[in-house]
């Protein structure tokens, strides 16, 4: 079983639209995992039934019992995250500021502070319209543990793929270069980098590829809106050559790309020409992925 992870460094490159198209092309051979839990959008194109929701708890959150509090102010003094303001002359925990370090509870003289595991999100295992299963999640506002939620989504998807003997898990990866994208990438057989020829696109591509390289994962690249800036496009291609990254395809700027999404469709269903380009990329991805040894 292989794992194909689509990432882009920053958002707005069309990553999710492309991943949805790949999911459509792969159909029943795949399990789909939406690991972009901060801004999970795949479900808008995949028509999931939001089956099997599961609450996800992680970290800790402090709570002050006002009846037990003697207002000594020690908790506020030790909290390095300014998360214990005085409101209406009571010491209270600001849930958005609390890091869950537990320090305040340890030093409160009256044991007025307790910690609980907050509900940081929901994870769903859904049937989708391509005849397979998608694991996706929704992170609660201000929650910090997206890396852990990403890991959960991925592990659920992998387990399902294993049981159902699927060819691969297709992962819509998290943005950025931080903890969530590290969780998205770990264990991947092949990475699809989606970029666009803008100065910031190239900049993000370089940064996120540093991470891919650290993991030693083979990568391919799709350049979206390739014709918008031929010069930067060339620079990207030079970079790909230098780093031995497969150029999967170059998609021209086309309003159909967004039109498809507005109509709740993947690009391959909506436009023949764009669809053909993405189908060819998918063939290349499958070929490249097949040649990579299974993880473990």
């Amino acid at each position, binding site marked *: 079983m292989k794992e194909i992870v689509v990432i882009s460094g920053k958002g707005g490159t069309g990553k999710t639209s492309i991943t949805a198209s790949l999911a459509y092309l792969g159909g029943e051979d795949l399990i789909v995992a939406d690991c972009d839990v901060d801004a999970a*959008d795949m479900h808008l194109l995949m028509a999931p039934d939001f089956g099997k929701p599961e609450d996800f708890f992680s970290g800790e959150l402090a709570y002050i019992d006002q009846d037990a509090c003697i207002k000594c102010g020690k908790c506020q003094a030790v909290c390095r995250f300014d998360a214990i303001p005085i409101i209406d002359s009571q010491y209270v925990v600001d849930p958005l500021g609390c890091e869950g370090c537990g320090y305040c509870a340890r030093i409160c003289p009256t044991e007025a502070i307790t910690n609980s595991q907050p509900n940081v999100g929901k994870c769903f295992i859904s049937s989708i319209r391509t005849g397979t299963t998608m694991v996706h999640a929704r992170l609660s506002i201000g929650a910090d543990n997206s890396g852990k939620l990403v890991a959960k989504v991925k592990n659920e998807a992998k387990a399902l793929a294993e049981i159902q003997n699927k060819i691969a898990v297709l992962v819509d990866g998290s943005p950025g270069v931080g903890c969530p994208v590290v969780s998205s990438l770990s264990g991947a057989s092949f990475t699809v980098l989606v970029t666009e020829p803008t100065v910031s696109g190239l900049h993000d591509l370089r940064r996120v590829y540093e991470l891919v390289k650290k993991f030693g994962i083979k990568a391919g690249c799709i350049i979206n809106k390739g014709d918008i800036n031929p010069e930067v496009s060339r620079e990207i291609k030079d970079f790909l050559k230098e780093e031995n990254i497969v150029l999967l395809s170059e998609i021209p700027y086309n309003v159909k790309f967004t039109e498809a999404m507005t109509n709740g469709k993947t690009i391959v269903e909506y436009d023949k020409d764009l669809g053909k380009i993405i189908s060819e990329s998918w063939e290349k991805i499958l070929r490249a992925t097949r040649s990579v040894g299974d993880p473990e």
Partner: protein
Amino acid sequence: MKIAIASGKGGTGKTTLSTNLASYIAESRECALSDLDVEEPNSGLFIKAELIHEEDKFKKIPEWEKSRCELCGNCQTVCNFNAVLKLGKMIMVFPELCHGCYACSELCPTGSLPMKQKKMGELKAYKSGNLNFIESRLIIGEEQAVPLIKQTIDYVDEHFSDEVIKIFDSPPGTSCPVIEATRDADFVILVTEPTPFGLHDLKLAVETVKQMGKPFAVVINRHGIGNDCVELYCKEDNIDIIASIPNDRLIAETYSRGDLLYPTIPSVKDAVRSISTYIDNFDLLDNGSLKSKKTGQIK
């Protein structure tokens, strides 16, 4: 006045708006633009200004001093992030996991875990006329964005008076980093695209700023590309749309070169002017709310 520019996800044009708005405002008054997307700061690609200051930013993490340690294991017990472990006769600290809460250090009976500085990123300040630009960058592999965002905001607070318009280009999403970046803001501008993806992410962002009790308004980017779902939603929920930037290939091309848009593209100039006028129309009250100069309405 502090204005945070945010969006539910990346790539909606947050950086485009921040850089163009700040440069436009700086034509007539002092403005400080900060890029708080410390994981991947991008604004600097669009701002041409002179580097005037540079400093390393540190976080505090504990460092084990062996001599007095009694190996009681208390440090391991109190750390909620598994960042300090007792392994045989050794205490190991894992800096990437440490949140810098000081618990292990201050609760160590022998004072064997003093907090020491560790570099987490760099802050750079640039200036060009009335425009100040501050950028912080996390070193790769460093996972905690929040402390650096906080220190960057502190730097801006220390160096610029209340009269300066401060614009914060926030990180994308709805998790901790964006909360930290908008926590201090007087007003939040949410940038979105008029598509189902854009609407979905906008709703999450609106929920976030509402929960934080911040006044906010929406700017639509790439207007005309999708449908009118965002406009309908804003109308229904009584959310102001203060400007729209049209979908235009010329904009995409200009952006791709790293150039500012408003000097050459009239529609973008109109948009930043509307936003600037909208902001100017408010007085900041002592209690943090905004009062309209025209209508007296409180936000």
